[in-house]
């Protein structure tokens, strides 16, 4: 099995039911921190609905992320046409640094994929945010993953 730069052969009958990838970008000149990107995929029960999963995720965020504010949501379409849900919100961390986070969800059958993109709000201009959203929209599932 190959995941990113890793090769690993799990013992039978193990099968991958969850994946998490982490990306990091250097900090912009005047930013308090770097920009991070987490992609996570896990199996969900058959018959799950994206709207319900997104609602549950938002409930968890609203209850667990201290100081979360400016929450907005949008229904989005990924580049391959698959619909998804995007949340954007802010919260303060490490003192006065306000982070802007984009949280997108995509459901393909029983595979739920989330993208969490975190950036220093002070350094986030419209062009950068737009490029981030373009990147989020590029998420697609390997056609063989559902077979």
């Amino acid at each position: 099995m190959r995941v990113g730069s890793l090769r690993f052969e799990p013992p039978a009958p193990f099968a991958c039911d969850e994946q998490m990838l982490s990306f990091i970008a250097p900090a912009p000149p005047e930013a308090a921190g770097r920009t991070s990107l987490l992609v996570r995929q896990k199996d969900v029960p058959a018959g799950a609905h994206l709207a319900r999963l997104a609602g549950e995720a938002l409930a968890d965020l609203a209850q667990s992320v201290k100081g979360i504010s400016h929450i907005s949501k949008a229904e989005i379409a990924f580049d391959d046409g698959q619909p998804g849900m995007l949340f954007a919100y802010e919260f303060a961390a490490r003192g006065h640094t306000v982070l802007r986070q984009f949280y997108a969800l995509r459901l393909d059958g029983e595979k739920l994929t989330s993208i969490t993109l975190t950036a220093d709000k002070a350094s986030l201009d419209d062009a950068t945010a737009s490029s981030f959203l373009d990147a989020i929209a590029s998420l697609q599932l390997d056609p063989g993953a559902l077979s």
Partner: protein
Amino acid sequence: MTRVRAPSTPLRPAAGQSPAPAPTADRTALEAELRDLRRQSRAHDPRGQLTYKDMMRASQEKAKIDQRIAKLEAQLASLAPAPAPVSGPAPRRPVDEMDRSRPIRTERDMDIVCPVLGAMVASGKLQMDADGNVKLSQLRDILVHDHNLSPIMARATAVTGFAGNGPLDVLGNLLGNEMNVLELRSGMIKHPGDSAILTGGKFDQGRFDAFVAHAAPGGPGEGGRMTIESFARAVQAQADRDQDGATRVAGSGGALGWILPGGLDTVVRGQPSAVVEYSALLNVYGQTDPATGERYITTDDLLTLYRDKQLPPSARMQSRPMTGVADFATTMAKMGYETAFGTSSGTALEGAERALGAEPKGTDGMGGAGKASCPFMHGGAQKAAPMSPAENHLLHAATS
């Protein structure tokens, strides 16, 4: 500033009648203003705004306008009917498109939507002034001394009252240490997914029957028994009802219902809120079966609470151990409240840790990743990791 407009469909006397008397003219002006305000309210619907800032601004404006509408509606309802003409043919009602034969009901004419607060007020334990305001300090005292809640739990319960009314009322509630129990229906705590037994303004027998249909059989004179499992089934059924636009109970969303339309509000606020409320109901007013140790509340007690506004006897609450935060948390957990994708917050915090370039508490980056993916780490270290001493020894032997 609100501009009073001439009515588009004025009241006009029917043929042969004397001119409209002064009260009718007042009514006409009020109705014209009401129509204008309703149009403004629709124009300030936050759902039509593109940005969060615009949504909040529109929401605040809409709340102000809606408050003015409520006052006007109450004013109209209180207006005396037009006096009969002194002479001429038999009096006839003026011709108008609006039927005023039914009085307009405002929220203040309805029952208190929270059965517990309603029963506290009805029993006289909680003093309500003419405007519907109650003191939260008094509520806290009742919870501690009469309901036998721990002081911490009582305080946590009472302070939610600050947010019980509309967004614009929070500051006033905080400063006055009070809340308005007559305006909870339009407040921020009102949520979809509840029983809706009192949402319509009066006790709804049909909704009550649907609620207690989930009860287990009870003993003699008990009706049925609503157990943790019963409440869990009721929560799910009510959530399913309000997620569907065709069956959603009108007005169930309160002041925040517009934020997450399309049934999402039921999942985000509705289900968790219902679990919290029913956990409180069960812990505070319930009984324990001595044979099985199972906690329950009888459907007869619920009927007395919702319909007759009577609390269970204080002696029952005083005779059980003090109810604290841990009891609530345990009941909520048993009621099955867990999110299917419950590590979203862990991922969010992990993203923050990585963005700020500091690893949590000197561990490597996977500490946060663990928090994001491991149910035993998520939410802190309250839960023990599932590792036996033998496994721990093997692990350390393998890595040393």
